[in-house]
């Protein structure tokens, strides 16, 4: 139903409609954090144009949030099928390790100049890294969709073993990448904006298109909301689940490329550490229930931005970064309390006039 059909909506009813929108609270949280940042650091909103690039704290937040946004998008569809993928951090490490091992970069003299060249051609290396990540996702999907193992335990296997595999690939070393064109994925600029923003935007648009313009979104929501009914309606749940986890692995691989290109190295032990938890947090903050069913891609993007803005606020207020964890815990608690149906029911029954 369109609002314009109504005979001039009053301000009150518009406010009501806004408040009932599922993204109302996530947006309020994000706005609150942005205002907080602006309060502590008046330069937060400043944007400047230097060397054909747009610079500023807000751009920085977007650039740093990009890997988390990518993973959160993949995680959203997994959670929508009543699943969870706690192996994404390990997949990030694996993808980064594959890319770093293949790209590497060795010093050669070309025309009397020192240049770094790749070990494998860059497109092939990127393709193989993403394929490795998707393969990890496929493994998760097979365990959950075909093997029928609970998602949390099925992905726990790769979470435990994945860092071992990543270290196996890098031989336990932190591999430094010297090949400059690779850095573009993490640090490059296109038309003044960071390349990572375009990557995430493309991913989000693709997923939004699949969700709204194909039946896939409906299938995913149906199989998450009521698996039995979805099966009876003829949805091939195993195939859907395998596809969803494979896609989630792919997004984690993408994040792995962005992260390793940004820090110019691959660390099997620490790359993507705790990323799975941040991604799940971003999805929950965005209003997608862990119980599956309806999901919001925009919500997850906002959730990821909330986490990054929060981190930025903590850094800019001069609080030791380690306190970040305490603040995150408090945010999780507040959000859980606000979204709690039990508390809401209690509060409403108290607020309602006695009939």
């Amino acid at each position, binding site marked *: 139903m369109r609002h314009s059909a109504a005979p001039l909506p009053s301000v009150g009813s518009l406010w009501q409609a806004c408040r009932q929108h599922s993204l109302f609270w996530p947006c309020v949280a994000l706005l609150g954090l942005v205002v907080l940042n602006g309060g502590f650091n008046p330069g937060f909103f400043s944007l400047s144009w230097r060397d054909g690039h747009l610079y500023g704290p807000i751009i920085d937040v977007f650039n740093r949030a990009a890997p988390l946004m990518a993973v959160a998008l993949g995680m959203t569809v997994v959670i929508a099928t009543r699943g*969870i993928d706690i192996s994404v951090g390990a997949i990030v490490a694996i993808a980064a390790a594959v890319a770093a091992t293949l790209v590497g970069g060795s010093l050669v003299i070309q025309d009397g100049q020192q240049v770094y060249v790749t070990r494998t051609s860059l497109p092939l290396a990127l393709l193989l890294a993403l394929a490795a990540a998707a393969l990890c996702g496929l493994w998760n999907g097979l*365990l959950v969709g075909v*093997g*029928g*193992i*609970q998602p*949390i*335990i*099925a992905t*726990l*296997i*790769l*979470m*435990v*073993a*994945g*860092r*071992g*595999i990543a*270290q*196996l690939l890098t031989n*336990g070393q932190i591999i430094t990448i010297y090949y400059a064109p690779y850095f573009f994925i993490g640090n490059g600029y296109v038309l003044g904006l960071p390349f990572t923003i375009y990557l995430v935007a493309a991913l989000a648009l693709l997923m939004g298109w699949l969700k709204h313009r194909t039946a896939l979104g409906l299938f995913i929501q149906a199989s998450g909301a009521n698996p039995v009914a979805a099966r009876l309606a003829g949805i091939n749940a195993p195939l859907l689940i395998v596809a969803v986890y494979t896609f989630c692995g792919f997004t984690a691989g993408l994040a792995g490329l962005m992260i390793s290109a940004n820090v110019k190295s691959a660390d*099997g032990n620490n790359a993507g550490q705790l990323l799975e*938890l941040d991604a*799940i*947090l971003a999805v*929950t903050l965005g209003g997608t229930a*862990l*119980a599956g069913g309806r999901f919001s891609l925009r919500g997850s993007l906002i959730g990821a931005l909330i986490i990054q803005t929060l981190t930025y606020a903590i850094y800019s207020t001069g609080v*030791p970064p*380690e*306190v*970040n*964890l*305490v*603040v*995150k*815990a*408090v945010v*999780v*608690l507040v959000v*859980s*309390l606000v979204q*709690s*149906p*039990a*508390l809401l029911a209690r509060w409403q029954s108290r607020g309602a006039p006695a009939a």
Partner: protein
Amino acid sequence: MQRPRLDAQTLPTALAAALFSLMFLGGSLAYDGFFSGQVFLNLFIDNAFLVVVAVGLTFVILGGGIDLSVGSVVALATMLLAAGIERWHLHPALAMGVVLLGGLLFGTAQGLLVQVVGVPPFIATLAGMFLARGLCYLISIDSIAIHDPRLATLSQTRLSAGALGEVSPSVLVAAGVVVAAAWAAHRSDWGRAVYALGGNERSALLMGLPVARTRVGMYAVSGLCSALGGLLFGVYTLSGYGLHGLGLELDAIAATVIGGALLSGGVGYVVGTVIGVLTLGVIQSLIMFDGSLSSWWTRIAIGALLGVFCMLQRAMNWWHRRHQSQRSA
């Protein structure tokens, strides 16, 4: 008294025990000096804290929940112990009491969050995980060494275990916890309620079981056990550090699953968890004795083992169901 028999519920635990024996025997054949009482006892000495933590977590998993905060609570316990003794000059016994009480309260708070507020266990204990680690760093970012002579002696103390060799006091603590936990799980009303809750919450509620008290209780027990595990770890390493116990929750969950507990709740044994911890320990010993394998093979081996046991559980379930439907037909 029921005769123990092999069925879908006991088989995974029995298989874990068989696998452990097989790996220990294999190690004995492959490496000189592996087959000794002391190597066996060292498994307990090195993993006493993990036994305590995993046993506490077993209750949460039996009840159909999950506790991701155990590793962080271990770190917080070591930090509080170290800071309490070295900075605030508390008597070690008092510091330990404070830590245990803190763990109990921490677990209870998480349980209330799950039960009363209705936060999913995964999210509630995730918040707990962040909070406990963050609190460690609020106390100190660096590691705090414990110099107290009484704790140093305690850390060095070894008790004779007859012909086998010697054990540390922590092993006795862990053994006490295991006995108490086995009694609580299989003989107490609360333990039965935990199994019922994990099996089917609605039936448990309809049976008139105190679901709310049971659920809060299992998180409280997990918090208490994590704090106790942290004390053992703190005395073992004589330090408090915010990075202690990183990823410990994964080891604890893996041990529980390998020991035969179903993560969906209602199925599992305390003894199974102990066998699971020993299995993880023997993998580490094998890799250490081998010397040529790098440490990351431990992670890969544990992951592979976890996978095998998950598939085994699925196969058992499937076989069990087919068996039953044949009998009823």
